[in-house]
């Protein structure tokens, strides 16, 4: 859906649902999700419909995903780090031990 204007500066690798994808250090996780296909970050807790980053500034909470094991992370406010594990969040998160 989106593409980088230039080749990646300081390339790192993150894993989106287990798939290795290239990213740029310090860009937001949401920006990386928007370069994947299909684009979505989570499913809504009521209807389970797909949601994608919408506002990119921490207002809408539709870009929530599980980042390095922490569910409901606002990916638009979370900078990418090498080796980061990103899981799209499906419905209500679980905290069952």
């Amino acid at each position, binding site marked *: 859906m989106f593409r980088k204007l230039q080749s990646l500066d300081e390339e790192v690798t993150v894993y989106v649902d287990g798939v290795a994808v290239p990213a740029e250090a310090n860009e937001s996780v949401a920006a990386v999700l928007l370069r994947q296909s299909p684009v979505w970050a989570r499913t809504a807790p009521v209807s389970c419909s797909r949601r994608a980053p919408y*506002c990119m500034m921490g207002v809408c909470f539709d870009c929530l995903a599980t980042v390095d094991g922490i569910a409901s992370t606002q990916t638009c406010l979370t900078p990418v780090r090498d080796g980061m594990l990103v899981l799209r969040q499906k419905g209500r998160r679980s905290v069952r031990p």
Partner: protein
Amino acid sequence: MTGGPDLLIVGAGPAGMSAAVVARRHGLDVLVVDEQSAPGGQIWRNIETAADTSRAGILGKAYSDGADVVRRFRASGAGYLPGARVWHLEPGPRAFIAQNGVARCIDANAILLATGAQERPLPFPGWTLPGVMTVGAAQILLKSSGQIPDEPVWIAGTGPLSLLYAIQLLKAGGRIAGFLDTAPSANLAGAFRELAGAFLGAPGDMLKGFGWLMALRRQVRFIGNVKEIEAIGNEALERLRYITANGRSATVDARLLFVHEGIVPTIHPTLALGCKHIWNAAQDSFAPDLDTWGETSVSDVFVAGDGARIGGAQAACHLGELAALRVAAKAGRLSRAQLAAVAAPVRKRLKAALAIRPFLDRLYRPRSAVFVPPEATLVCRCEEVSAARILEQAAAGRPDPNQVKAFTRAGMGPCQGRQCSYTVASLLAAKEGRTVPDVGLYRVRPPFKPITLAELAALDAGAVIP
């Protein structure tokens, strides 16, 4: 509790950074906390990294101008905590922040909220589909990640930002499938009355704006006076339907739609603190009630920048400077006479920076469907509550937004009503023949930014930091 900074500034955008620089100049001890990982706010997001790239050329001079402000802020000697959220405020004033998984509170002699604006909520059927984003979001992606859509995009909206982004996108090699101008043509008459003032006050900006408009009309499919839009798709945007005020309707294939209907002040912090607010009719939004220095009804809590009223980056800088001067004077660093003398030229520049606003406010006043969307629209994105369900509540005789919230769960999700508060108020007002300021918004329950249980658990009296 003393030992905290003289001035705690929330937000490192134009207003916050300018305030920090001025406050430091007058010897105040300043701490700036900001949610982002680098200074600049939304308008100058990522400026330090992007300034030397080709992106800066695409984004234009107004963006590059930020680099200088950031440099002066960095050199000011103000303390700076990036990646920190302020989630609660108390009179005193005291701010509760969360950073790196730990919550703590900071007492300050004064707090300046320079928390800017958010894009106006603009509910329409299908706006939750992946593929629909705000123009602001798209521009942030360009600024902070250097990325643009890889296929033709539809843009629907009003306001300078829609035009600016469209121009930037074309410059960056992006493609626009069509531009749906949603400003009602009836706005023109009102805007015309403000035209002279705008041209006299801000001739450069006016010419630039008309230039963008002309360029856009030349280069892309431009459809004016669009009254309603609908995003259609199963798991993502597939088609876009629009209807113009003259009844022209079309359904087109679309994978990406960017929408924008102006911006509104961020008022969650001041609402949560219990500050008095006023209704800014020209901008169809609430704003904190401020004195001429930006002080709220809660003593020693100030607001500057777009959080006070939408005025753009230049005006935000000046409002930040004025607030900082007042705080310095209150702290005894300036006499009354000195304050007046230093503030006078700032006020003059502020006036100039705001000269174009009445024209823009009139020209880009959103159409009515932005406030009162069709019944099938999901009004609350988080809890998935439709306009129809809100209206049912009104019919059952529950006129208060807080009652509607309790009974429908609209506004109870993680965004805490940031995307539905205005819409619920507008729906109730329309249904009952009242006004939005009369109906009011949801009460804001703390924390106004989410914190985790672990962060709260880590908060205790021992964690009050100097």
